[in-house]
Structure formats: C-alpha cells, structure tokens
C-alpha cells in the first residue's frame, strides 16, 4: 500500500540510470524514470516521479549498488525536516 515518503537520491553517489538503472527496474511500482539532463559527470540520474505510488518496499534502497537511495516515511519528524531543508 502506498505510503507518504521522501525518496532521496544522492547525486554524487548514483552512477547513472543509463549504466545502472537497477532502481528503475526493481521498483514494483514504477516510481522512477530516467532524467533527460546529463549531469556534469556525463550521466543521467533516476528521478522519483510516481512518488505517491511508493509502498516503501525498500527494493530500490536494498538493490542500489551505490547506496545512493534513501526512502523515508514523511511522518518521521527528522525526515520531514530534512525534506524541508532540501527543498529550500
């Protein structure tokens, strides 16, 4: 069941959805898509798009080979706060 989450993708750690793309493939809810924009490092990141579909199954977290993804429940106060900061 979908849960209100924050999905954080560390751009410094992710190796790029073009080369890797494991999160895209293993998310049962198809939450991610691949970004169009190339980063300075020449890769394209995954973007958590259908975030509301997320069930926090943690597949993306557990399978990400670069520990680049964190999925956290919005209700956890620290998480909400962090999300706040991040969008500033």
């Amino acid at each position, binding site marked *: 069941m979908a849960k209100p989450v924050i999905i954080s993708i560390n751009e410094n*750690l992710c*190796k*790029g959805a073009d080369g*890797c793309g*494991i999160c895209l*493939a293993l998310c049962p809810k198809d939450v991610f898509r691949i970004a169009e924009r190339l980063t300075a490092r020449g890769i394209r990141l995954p973007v*958590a798009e259908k*975030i509301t579909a997320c069930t926090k199954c943690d597949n993306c977290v557990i399978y990400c*080979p*670069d520990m680049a993804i964190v999925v956290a429940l919005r209700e956890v106060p620290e998480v909400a706060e962090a999300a706040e900061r991040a969008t500033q």
Partner: protein
Amino acid sequence: MSAAALEHPLAKFIRPSARTTANCPGCGNGILAQSILRAIEELGLRLDDFVFVSGIGCAAWIPSPSFYADVLHTTHGRPIAFGIGIKVALPHKRVMVISGDGDLTAIGGNHLIHAARRNIAMTVFCVNNGIYGMTGGQVAPTTPLGLTTVTTPFGNAENPFDICELVKGAGASFVARWTTYHPRQLVRTAKKAIQKKGFAFVEVLSQCPVEFGRKTGIGNAVQMLEWYKTKSVGVARAKDMSAAELADRIVVGELVDIEKPELMETLEGIRRKAMASS
C-alpha cells in the same frame, strides 16, 4: 519528489574519505556490500568488532577502503592466509574476508581449501562474477565451458568449479550460495555466517555488467539480475531435481551447516596443555 539530503542508514559504516565506490555503474558488488553491512547492523554489531580482509580485484575493493573499520587489502589470492594471522592475534575479533572468485578460487584456491579444512572461525564472502573484472574480462575458474572471453577468444576449454562443492569437499562447516538478486536472503545468511563458530563460506553470484554481462550477451545490470532470478533454484527444491534439470541452474540457499572442531578453540587447548606440561 526527490530530496538530496537524507543520510543513508548504513552511511555510518562507510569511511568518510571513501564515500563513492570505484565500481562501474550497476556492478553487483555494491549490493553485496550493502547486504553485509545490513547484516552487521541487524546483529547489533559494530564495525570495530571486525577486521576485514580482501585480496586484489573489484570484489576486493568492497571493504577497501569503503568499510569504516580495520581493513587489510592484501596481495592477490592471499586474504584468507593473512586473515588467519589476524584471527590468531585477535581471537575476539571477527575476521571477514570479502574477495573475488579469481582471487579466492584461482590464485588463492589453496588458502581457501586449507582454511576450510582447519575450520577456523572466519566468514568468507566470495563474489562470483564468472570473470576477472578488474583486469578486463579474462576467463576465471568460474567461467562456463565454451564462453568467449579475452583470453578464450574461441571459447573456454575448461570446466568451471562448483565453488560450494569444492569448499564443502575441503571440510567447511558452513557453506551457502546466493545471488545479488537475493539481497534479503543474503542478509539472513550473512547473519548466520558471521555467527558461525567455524569456517563460514558464502558464494555470491554478482553481476559484472561491463566485463561479463556485455561480453557474454547476457546483458546489462538489470538483465543480469533478471537472469539470476530466472536461473536460481532453492536448495530444497533442487534436491528433487535431476542433474540434467539442474545443468544450467544456480542452486541457492544454505548448503552445509555442521559442527566440527574449530581452530581457535583447538589452539587454545594446545596452549593450556603446553602450559600444564612439565
């Protein structure tokens, strides 16, 4: 929406100066790394309870330098032999070896079988990507018969090891196999392996999309995970299958879990006896 600020729950286990891995995109090694750290976390252990030892190769870079702990990155093939010295010196620490199939079963095969024979308390994770990743895709003792690699351009003429059978034949007291498609099972087994009083060996089939997947045509990281999923068969189910049915399948699960004298204990016995001797 995505936010960049959340700290990964296992980030505390990562050496600050080595937050990014040197792995290729989609390399399976990171999945194993995370699984190991997760198992340690779930067991309530600290990284300071461990000494990590690895050889040379991509897999050997899993703990080195990333794990924020004592790490010995040794010569090619020898991590287990180094680990034995460490374990004797620090019997109350847990020694964990993480290295590649080439490292542990090609050049390092002898140390592997002797450690298994000795049944020294040590956890060994062997990353089986079926190839030598770091040096650019040469044949490994795990590469299937007939496969084309840069050193077998007309196909591999050699039968591969069944590594788990080998280690079992050598006398290990705990032997298991999973793939990077099975991180949750891997965590469960890793916890057992870490707690085993004896030589605990876990083979992990792991995708090397760059040097194996691409060159064998099995495909990219995602396709390789898919392939692991399709090919895997649990050890319980495998028991009822014929050799022919099992031919190109990957039997996963815990294959051996027995009790036998462990080296640190027998050595302690020797010391007691020696001190008591006239």
